[in-house]
């Protein structure tokens, strides 16, 4: 994400356990703070109904704990019902915040959809799957890979959110770090403190504070902490007692596997982690 760039929309994956009120609210609040539209996307497994034609394909239903034959109509109906419920929740939560929202049911390859829909400046919100098994399913891995592989920023929301208020933390490891700018904007909009975790030479800390003040944040709402490095553990150490509501870091700031890094921080802190593109 280029410094000072404008986001166009927050894209929220409503499939795979993300259609929960807390997740939608986190995405909607982010959209509200940044003045963006919320675009809810329900990803349909296009191949699923067709697979009913293969007689040996069965479905293990969690509710019954038993295997059932795939039924094309039933699967289609259930997908429609899930999409409808996701839309209802999206309307309810986003409506309460008064933000612009859009809902879309998408079939096909998620990577193609993301590539076609998202652009630099968008934020894709991905929920940490509730079930570990969901992390391993085909579509989830595809969606995550596609999200982290596109030009948009990605916010990972943990299933169990610890807090919704508190400072906005930003990992700063370079001058004009995009994480600092987006974090400063969110902190200003939310009326929160900006917690800067700075890794680098001493002048980087003062420079980061100056940049933050330049966005309009008063000095007393800017806290700077130095961290020895940018490993996830360094970041977690820097966040100690920070009571933050959100962690923002630039893509690749903590290593190449942004998905793993954000997942680790989000799970450890119980707050969303926003990975912004440089």
């Amino acid at each position, binding site marked *: 994400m280029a410094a000072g760039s404008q986001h166009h929309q927050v894209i929220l994956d409503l499939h795979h356990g993300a259609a929960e009120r807390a997740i939608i609210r986190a995405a909607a609040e982010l959209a509200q703070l940044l003045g963006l539209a919320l675009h809810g996307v329900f990803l349909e497994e296009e*191949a699923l109904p067709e697979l009913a034609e293969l007689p040996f394909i*069965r479905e293990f239903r969690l509710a019954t704990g038993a295997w059932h034959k795939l039924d094309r109509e039933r699967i289609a109906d259930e997908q429609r019902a899930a999409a409808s419920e996701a839309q209802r929740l999206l309307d309810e939560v986003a409506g309460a915040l008064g933000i612009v929202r859009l809902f879309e049911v998408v079939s096909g390859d998620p990577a193609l959809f993301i590539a076609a829909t998202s652009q630099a400046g968008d934020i894709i919100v991905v929920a940490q799957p509730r079930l570990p098994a969901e992390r391993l399913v085909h*579509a989830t891995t595809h969606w995550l890979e596609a999200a982290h592989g596109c030009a948009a920023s990605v916010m990972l929301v943990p299933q169990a959110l610890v807090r919704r208020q508190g400072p906005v933390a930003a990992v700063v490891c370079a001058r004009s770090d995009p994480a600092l700018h987006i974090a400063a904007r969110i902190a200003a909009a939310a009326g929160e403190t900006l917690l800067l975790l700075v890794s680098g030479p001493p002048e980087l800390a003062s420079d980061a504070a100056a940049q933050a003040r330049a966005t309009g944040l008063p000095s007393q709402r800017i806290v700077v902490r130095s961290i020895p490095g940018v490993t996830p553990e360094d970041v977690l150490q820097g966040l100690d007692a920070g009571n933050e509501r959100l962690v923002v870091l630039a893509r690749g700031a903590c290593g190449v596997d942004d998905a793993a890094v954000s997942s680790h921080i989000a799970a450890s802190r119980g707050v969303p982690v926003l990975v912004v593109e440089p």
Partner: protein
Amino acid sequence: MPPLDPASPLPPERLYRPADLTALSFATTEELAPLRELVDQPRAHEAIRFGTEMGVRGFNIFAIGAIGAHIQGSVRALLDDAAGKRPKPSDWVYVNNFVTPHRPVAISLPPGRAPALDKAVDDLIDDLKVSLPGAFESEDYQKRRSAIEQQIRGRNEHAFSALRDKATAKGIAILRTPMGFAMAPMKDGQVVPPAEFNAWPAEQRHAVQTAIEELEKDLEETLRALPRLEREQRDAVRELDRETARFAIAQPIEDCKSRFADLPKVVQHLEAIQADILENVALFINPQATGEEAALGGMRLGSLFDRYEVNVLVTRTDGEAGAPVIEDVHPTLSNLVGRIEHLAVQGALVTNFRLIKAGSLHRANGGALMIDLRNLLTEPLSWAALKRALLRQEIVIEDVARFMGMTTTVTLEPDPIPLDVKVVLFGDRMLYYMLASLDPDTAQHFKVLADFDDDVDRSPASEAMIARLIGSIAAGAGLKPLDRGGVARVIEHAARLADDASKLTLLVESIHDLVAEASYCAGQGGRGVVTRVDVEQAIAQQRRRASRVEERGREMILRDIALIATTGSRVGQINGLSVLSLAGHAFGQPTRITSRVRPGAGRIVDIEREVELGGPIHSKGVLILSGFLGGRYALDTPMSLYASLVFEQSYGGVEGDSASSAELYALLSVLAEVPLRQDLAVTGSVDQHGRVQAIGGVNEKIEGFFDVCAARGLTGTQGVLIPESNAQHLMLRADVVEACAAGRFAVFPVRTIDQGIQLLTGRAAGERGGDGKYPEGSVNRLVEDRLAAFAKARQAFGRDAPPEASGGT
């Protein structure tokens, strides 16, 4: 007091007794000390004092008096005095029963401490609303929770990663269906559509199918382990939550408990709150989600934290001294024993312990409760509920709707509260006597009777008391003060209301009305102080407003439609006097009574009785006349008289014996064939010996005849014969007294029939001489001779024909 001369009318000073305020020094009532209670009620006061001091069950008080006596004012003053010496009773609160919520727990606290408990619990919960979420957001908690979750998640993910790797290696994709999981062939990272798959070689398809069957088993096994792992995680997190919460709430709860360490039940309740918070810590951590969940799950009332609140049912504030004295003016069942209110939620009526409201029994508990008996008995279920409470000595809140079978909604069974109250019922006597005779429980629960007199002996002291009462009424009602003349006139009217010059009424309501109207009159006259003139005017206006029937009756007489002679004399005809009382307004009017006689079997026929217009007491009076006649005149011969008596132009019922002397005079007149004066009217009952006895309404009767005479023009000979014993009751109107003083009217006190007949006929009644005979020409001699003649006539006739067929007079 000197004996009265029957031949002489009563002197004016005997017709009206003015008030004597010489013992009281004041210019207006503003200077008089207020009167809290009516004194001179020693019997009733002793009863109430005894009742309030008697701590034994059942010694509640029944205070009775006349309607309008306002005895509750006196009762209240006495109870207040007694209550001031008793200690303040306990406060009572209802709190949630966390085990069985439909049975709220009642807790007693020392007086005045209930609000402190309420505030302490409120503060505790408010603190915890902040400190508990803080504890759960703390780094320490998050780290520990994260460690638990990551450990379990790690075990989960390890199993799933192995499965995914295995599936990927075999070219199988794991798919998420809306309700579960499925597997499908995969090629180049994409699910293979059925058409393409069917085009694959048979061995390849078979291999995929075999791989899927194998992986299904692994997937099933892994998924089946999920609930156990999740449960493990939940248990571990719950234990962490409990530990965190226990630590967070321990100190605030201990602080709160220490403030009520002397109250074991309060401490027990605070421990129950602690246990409930530990079980429901989510209320504090995520109230919104819990609230939404609760709202979806059922009908909830108010906030989720209401369960911890304290419902202060009754508390004694610092300003109150001693035990409470409460008057329940509207003793419905729920006002009496308290009620459980309901609120409509989603169309259903729901309730909880916070909606329990105190009744008057709760508020009066430890003190005294006053209830108007009539109000109590006119409220359905209240009397029975009061008796139940007194019998069980506890207050059980009873739901009237459930009693009547009107609702089956959710309700509560709050702990009963021990009852220690002195119940004082007050009302009029008739109601008490009826209740006592119809409901034997009355005597069981109300063993102390405080019977208030309707009047008080008239003396300077009692007049001073009434003067202070008048002052209190005027001050209390914001009326103008009365000067000495005004007060004196009200006191005199109080004697008139008592129907006795030597008594003063205690019917406070009537005195209040008069003082209020007099104040109005003073205002109309532009006076700041109520004078005697104003009181006179008020009395006159009271009479005027109610006098339509009285005036119509007098008009009938004056127009000779109702025949009443006020001059001349007639044989067998006399003016009797009767009193009519309509809605509290009593007035007298004359009635013509006549008699006819003939020989017969010794029977006096009361025509009123024959046509069923005469009441039993009136008939008794007439029968007494037979006794008198037989005893006086038929000493050696049978009574051979047939006499008839009638109230002429009387078309309504006649009751009472106050006309029996007049009837006797008419009878004697017709027997003696001596005319009776029509310018005199007569009242008084008579006994078999000819003694004239007291009657009621003497003032109204005299005034009734006076008004007729005055309207026709007073002749100076007119007057009324009253029983001598009624002379002490006279409180006549000023115009009557004035006429008597001027010799234009007269009131004669009569002790015997002989005295009366002498006044009415101008002829001596006569006394038996040594020869056993009455003097010649005396009324008695004439009567006796006539009766003897009747006896002879009947004797002669009896030989030939039945006596009833004989001729008339």
